[in-house]
Each structure stands twice: as C-alpha cells, then as structure tokens.
C-alpha cells in the first residue's frame, strides 16, 4: 500500500522581492507502507526542503509552489491550521537535524511529552499526570532512555540523549511516517552509530515508514531499503539500496559520491572530491544540471534535460548516457569501470 505519494512538487524560496530560488524541482516520489527510504545529496541539493515539504513544515520564505502531496489518499498540500494539525496524530512526524535544540529549554521532558499528548486527545482520551508519566516512561524506553530522564530539563541531557528524547516526542504522535532530517549530523561518530542502530530497530519493530535525509551515503545505504539521490533540486537516481551497493548502472553523480568515501579496511585510500560546485538554483535548467561537473558529459547533455527513466531492477536514473537504453548501459559500465 502506498502511504505517501508526491507528484510534481516544486518548492520555491523567495527571500526578497523578485528573487526566486527553485530548491526542489518537479519531484515525484511514493513511499510504501513500512518502507525505509533514504535521500542523499550534498548541501543545498534540496533534500531537507523536500522533507519539510512532504510534512508540511515549510516556513517562509519557502513555499510549495505546485504539486500534489497525498498522505493515505488525502491531499495534505492545501491543509492549514487545525486541519493540518489533526493530520499529525497517527500521521507524519519530523525529527530535526538540530535535535539538540529541538527541546524547549524551560520545560521538563515530562511536560513536553504531556504537551504533545494533550494536543492530540482522541475521543475519550484523558491525559492525567500519571497517564502522561506512564506513557512517557514507555516512550523513553522505546528510544533507550531511562525513566529518570522524564523529570529532567533538556540542558541536563547529553546531545545524544536529547536527540533520543526528541525522537520519543515524535513517537508520542504514533506516526505512520517519520522524516529524519540529518538526525545524527550534530553528534560524534560513536553516538551517531548507536542512534542509527536504534532508529533502524525502532523502524523494524514499529513498522512505520521512514524517510532518512542525510549527506552521508554510507549511513543511508546501511540503514535504508531504497535510496534517492538528489542533485540541484531534482531526483537523479532512485534505486534499491542493495543494488546501489552492488554496483551496476548509476548516475555519474552517484558514482562521484561513491568515490568520496573510502573503505576503512583498504590499504591505500584514494578519496576524490567532485570538482566544481552545484549550479545556481535561481536559474531554470534546460540542460543536465550535472553536466558541467560530469566526466562523461557529451553534446546532448548540454541541450536537453534528462528525465528520470526506469532502468532494470525497479530503479530509475535521470541521465542521457546511463539511463534508458541498453546500449548506453553498456557504455556506462565501461565508463564507470
């Protein structure tokens, strides 16, 4: 069953008069129930903006210019105010990048969990102090925190604990979709690994759909079922994570991203960066946005924008050379080797 389906999503930032930045361009994607999907790309590729658009969290100067976002068949793009608020219970939640600052500094965790529960009373639900306490202990247990954390203020917790507490708050909504926006970026590597492990287990145990947004290819491929690669506001590749790791056909940008990471067990580590920088998002793109940085770009890439096209094994790639036909696939394999 499809839980969320987005069609033709365009998000524009309008920071000043006459200035328009197309951060997300014509993105369509669908999330199956219980699926764990990752979105990767470098800074400014629109991945977080996409996550915010899907959960109706865009703040001015950003706004959804066009597109349909259906959650369980209901178009949520037009929802505002109370209508949107009611969708959040048993709907969609977000865990922010700066989870460290996602908690109100002057309220205890107990109160903040209480705030979430009180805000979404279903018929017949009554959240007494004891009921909030019991539910709080349960939620903290899910994220591996001790019940003593309930009485604490955010500044009394470590960064990793705060991010876990923030996840517990999101879980209080019993969401069917959680968007994790760079949940581990602000943490050190050890805490990062433990937190990702916890998120994976939580997702498996509770069966919610998860969208993991990260700039870290290895984190995404390790955790997810399917990975989406974004470049300059567009999806350039969408494939199963296993297929991504195993090789096969890739968008040149994905290959370039792979070369940015090294096998920690290798004797000789050669890391490559991607020369050049992403294009100016205030300009329209009539050609392939990656062409100026692409090592295999040819004539067509400079005039015509490649569309996201199915390749074998259920994936899709937006590239003139690596997508679509068998012939270009062969070329691609030689070029990539």
């Amino acid at each position, binding site marked *: 069953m499809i839980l969320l389906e987005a069609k033709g999503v365009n998000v524009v930032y309008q920071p000043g008069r006459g200035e328009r930045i197309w951060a997300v361009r014509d993105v369509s994607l669908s999330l199956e129930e219980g699926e764990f999907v990752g979105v990767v790309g470098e800074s400014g590729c629109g991945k977080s903006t996409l996550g915010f658009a899907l959960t109706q969290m865009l*703040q001015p100067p950003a706004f959804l210019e066009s597109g349909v976002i259906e959650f369980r068949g209901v178009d949520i793009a037009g929802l505002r105010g109370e209508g949107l608020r009611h969708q959040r219970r048993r709907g969609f939640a977000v865990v922010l990048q700066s989870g460290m600052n996602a908690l109100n500094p002057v309220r205890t965790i107990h109160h903040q969990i209480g705030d979430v529960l009180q805000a979404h009373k279903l018929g017949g639900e009554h959240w007494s102090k004891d009921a909030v306490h019991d539910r709080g202990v349960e939620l903290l247990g899910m994220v591996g925190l001790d019940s003593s954390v309930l009485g604490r203020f955010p500044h009394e917790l470590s960064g990793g604990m705060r991010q876990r507490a923030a996840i517990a708050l*999101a879980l209080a909504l019993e969401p069917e979709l959680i968007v994790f926006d760079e949940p581990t970026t602000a943490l050190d590597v050890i805490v990062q690994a433990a937190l990702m492990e916890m998120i994976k287990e939580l997702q498996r145990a509770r069966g919610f759909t998860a969208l993991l947004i990260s700039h870290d290819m290895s984190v995404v491929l390790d955790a997810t079922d399917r990975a989406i690669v974004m470049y300059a506001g567009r999806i350039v590749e969408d494939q199963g994570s296993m297929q991504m790791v195993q090789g096969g056909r890739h968008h040149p940008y994905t290959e370039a991203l792979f070369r940015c990471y090294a096998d920690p067990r290798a004797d000789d580590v050669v890391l490559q960066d991607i020369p050049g920088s992403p294009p100016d998002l205030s300009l329209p793109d009539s050609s392939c946005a990656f062409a100026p940085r692409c090592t295999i770009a040819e004539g067509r890439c400079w005039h015509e924008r490649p569309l996201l096209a199915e390749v074998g094994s259920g994936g899709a790639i937006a590239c003139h050379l690596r997508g679509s036909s068998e012939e270009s696939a062969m070329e691609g394999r030689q070029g990539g080797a």
Partner: protein
Amino acid sequence: MIGLRYFARKGAMFLLTLWAAVTLNFIIPRLMPGSPVQATLARLAAGGQTVTEATKRAIEIQLGLPHSSLWTQYLDYLVNISRLRFGMTYSITDESVAHAILAAAPWTLVLVGTSTVIAFVVGTLLGVYAGWRRQTRVDSVVTVSSTFFSAFPPFFLGLLLLYFLGFKYHMFPLTGGYTPGLVPQLTLSFLGNAVYHSILPAVTLVVTSLAGWVLGMRNNMINTLGEDYVLFAEANGLRNRTIALLYVARNALLPNVTGFGLALGAVIGGSVLVESIFGYPGIGSLLLLAVDNRDYPLMQAIFLLITVSMLVTIFLVDLLYGLLDPRVREA
C-alpha cells in the same frame, strides 16, 4: 526542585553587596570637599551676616558635626542605620529624616510602582501579541503607536496632559496627591481622592515607558520564534496557544524579567521630573527639596534607600529567575 545552594549563594552575594553599598554611602560624602557647616556658613555670609568662630561652633553643634575618629563614626553610622535613625532634616522644621521619608514613600511606591507594573504587564502582553502576529496590521499598529508615544519625554507629556485635561477642560486636578485640607487616612473617600489625583501622573509614566516593554518583548518573541524547539513543537502539532505561550512567550519573557526587576528597583527613587511637575508628595519631590536646601542627611538617606531597594529587587529577581529558567540554577 530548586537548589538550596543557588539561594544560599545568591543570599551571600546579596549581603556582601549590601555591605559595600552601605559603606560607600558612608565614605563618599566624607570624600567630598567642603562640609555642611561650611556650606551653611557660606550661605549666611552671602546673606550679609557676620560669621564668627562662635557662629561656626553653634552650627557645628546644631548639625551634630562629629569629632570622633572615622572608625567610631563608621560604627555609629552602622548602628544608626540599623535602627533607621538618619538624624533630622533641615528642609522641614522639627522633622526627622526617617519620618519625612516614611511619609513620602507610600505615595511614590503606589504611584510609580503601580505604573511600572501596569506598563510592564500591558507592554509585555502587547509585545507577545505583536510578536506572534508579526508583520500583520495589528503588529504595525502596536509597534508604531507605542514608539510614537515613548518618543515623548515624560515631563513634556505630563505638561501637555496638565494643560489640556487639567487647565483647559478641568477634568483632573492640577497639582498634589490629594485635595488640600483632607487628612491622609485609609477611608474610601480619601483613597478615591488620591486615585483621582494620581491618574494624570500615572498615565504619563505608563505611556512613556510602555514602548520599551512592547518592543523588547516583540523582538524576543521574534527571535524565539526562530528557535528549533518552536519549529519542532509545530511539527508535533501542538496547539497554537500552547506554542505561543509555553514555548515562545515563556522563553522570550526571560530577558524582560531582568529589565522589570531593574525598573522595580528604581521605583523608590521616584520619578523626580514627573513628581515635581504634578506636585506629587513622593520621594522624587522630597529629593528635589533636599537638593534645593543642601539637606545632606535627607539626601544621604534617600540615596541609601534607592541603593538598598535596588539591591533587594535585584536579589529577588535573581531568585525569581532561578524559578523561571532552570538553566541558571546550576550555573
């Protein structure tokens, strides 16, 4: 919940500062060139009287000029102020300083204190509303109008009000804290009379200090609205009222509380200009009287009162802050 150590540390700090303030209040007048005796003699000489050694002695005795060592004077001073004995005032015949201050203080406390509280509460609420509804028409109206009124100097607004509402249209009395002839007492009719007299000065004080609270709170609100925990609260679908009050305003209030404490501490010093324009029988008018008459005992006592009340309110605000912001308790 709140740490006892926090209170103990703040209390010790308070006592130390209090001692320093009291001691400075003793030292500073003694460091000033000249003495009250010389000032009086100069005044007499300027008036054409012959000043002899006997006159000087007489004045020294009258003013009680001390001849003991500085150390003894300091101990006497400490004993005297602990018993609230500040000597006699020169400005009012047969009146002790303590008595004069005690008579003036309630007027100032009620007028300036109430105005400060009203300005803070109204200003903060307006600021919360304007900040929450930022960049709407309500916000513009609130911000622009409060800035406009605060641009008036208090004495000027006071004079305008007196001229139009008092002098031209006889809606309010021109001067005083109550109708002359009445005896200050706690009866309903007297209190009514006093409130009626205090309306114009109170309006002056509230209107001119309102904008500070409005703009301060509005800016804090807008800063806090950009915090991640507000965004996260929205993502979790909290009610708008919960977010506005418990997440945004609750955090935005903290800097304003400090300002409020300082404003309250300044209340007892009165508002010299406003009190003197309205002929209000408060500490501000008393201080003006003391300065006019070179009334050292009265001045010194009022300065001490201002310092001590400032310290006490800062201490209380510190304690309150500990309750409001859990982060400072351990700091």
